[in-house]
């Protein structure tokens, strides 16, 4: 069995979280968090995360602050980040990409496309990310 990538979903809407998990769980190890604080906590505890899929409009810490925090940390600054948001204006997209996001997807989404996008981002960031799933064996 080949190694699987760990995808971390950060999304405050429970139902969207469930849909994303269902869309991805066949191909990835999926862990989801309700807000960026929980997500940071999970990362800081040393849990393996290969790619982050995050919402922007969340209570406490919004997506942009989340990107900034991750990019400022020594350990996860290379972890690919994909934004999944209802904001579809180019100013927000530019701000996020400049902040350090690797790609930007707009809600509502097609589950197939989310999956394909994650694959694509992983492909082009291959040199900085290796699958790190603890559970999977080679």
């Amino acid at each position, binding site marked *: 069995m080949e190694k699987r990538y760990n995808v971390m979903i950060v999304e405050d809407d429970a139902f*969207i979280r469930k849909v994303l998990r269902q*869309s991805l769980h066949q191909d990835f190890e999926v862990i989801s968090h309700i807000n960026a604080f929980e997500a940071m906590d999970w990362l800081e505890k040393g849990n393996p995360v290969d790619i982050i899929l995050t919402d922007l*409009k969340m209570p406490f810490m919004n997506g942009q602050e989340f990107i900034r925090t991750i990019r400022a940390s020594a350990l996860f600054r290379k972890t690919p980040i994909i934004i999944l948001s*209802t904001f579809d204006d180019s100013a927000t997209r530019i701000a996020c990409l400049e902040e350090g996001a690797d790609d930007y997807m707009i809600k*509502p*989404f097609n*589950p*197939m496309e989310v999956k394909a996008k994650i694959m694509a981002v992983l492909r082009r960031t291959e040199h900085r990310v290796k699958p790190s799933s603890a559970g999977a064996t080679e």
Partner: protein
Amino acid sequence: MTSTLLKRPFTILLVDDREENLLALEEMLEQDGRIFIKATSGNEALRYALKNDQIGLIMLDVQMPGMDGFEVARLLKTNPKTRHISIIFVTAISKEEQYILKGFDEGAVDYLQKPLDINVTKAKVNVFERLYQYQRELKETIGEVEKINKQLEKFVYIVAHDLKSPLTGMIGALSLLEQRESFKLTPDDVDEYIRHSKDASTYLSGMINALLDYSRKSITQQSIEEVDTQELVEQIARLLFPPRRIKIRINGRLPVLKTNKIKLQQVFQNLLSNAVKYHDKPDGYVDVSCQDNGDFITFYVKDNGPGIPMEDQQNIFRLFQTSVNHSGADTSTGVGLSILKLIVEEQGGQIKLESSPENGSLFSFDWRK
């Protein structure tokens, strides 16, 4: 639109090189609500016109030493700051002058013939004053409309965003259902996605109804009247029929305001009914008080109820957001508090919430006097 025909002071700049003419003109035109500025030369007149943006009319003597009246007018009409000011030339009207006057055909320009006829002069100035007041009112209305448009733009943006959220879940779920084989959905998954999509559509439909209701209200609720807020709050408190264990109390005397009654009523109605609806204490109270803050009155609605959880406080004014701890079968769509926020903010105020499980909730909002 509000049509408060509030008469503004009308400022007239009188220009004549002879003091006695200035005094005579002022005496002739003297009236309540009129302010006169006097200049004895073209240069002085230009200086006043540039400095004072309240000037509504210039009575301009044509024959003056140095810069004559026509020259002053030409300069005024080329400057964007003074171009709009109405001018009445005071002139003896020689043949030559009649010809020059034609050059000023466009724009609010008129002339009075020397020697001045009191009645004609008064009547003409009255006409210009009325014109000025109408223009002023129009300008204010345009400003108000622009403000409302901006508000609306912001509102539409928030609404669009918040409508998208349940749709996102739904579209995702339906896509999964469509490809249930490749996503390996169990029959339980299928049931759940169908149920959830149905809930989301019901919710969306509720939101749309609430929005329609809101837009109907904002169209009809524009009139300003004298409102005794004490009476208003007492009446709302009575009509809420709070359970015996909950007391609605007013601390101090609430003021009488000239304002939009229905909007203020909507704010109090929402805050008071929420405070009563979610109250969980056997010995409950809801206190209403106020504080004078210059241009605004700040009203306070305080209860000793359950408080609003920290994680909800930030979102509670967002459109369609309802707190998770709402009691039982409450099907409020959550439009309430965000509309209160809009109502309070559209007149320049702020609505705030302080809340904790120990102390209950304290809502405060500013209302323009």
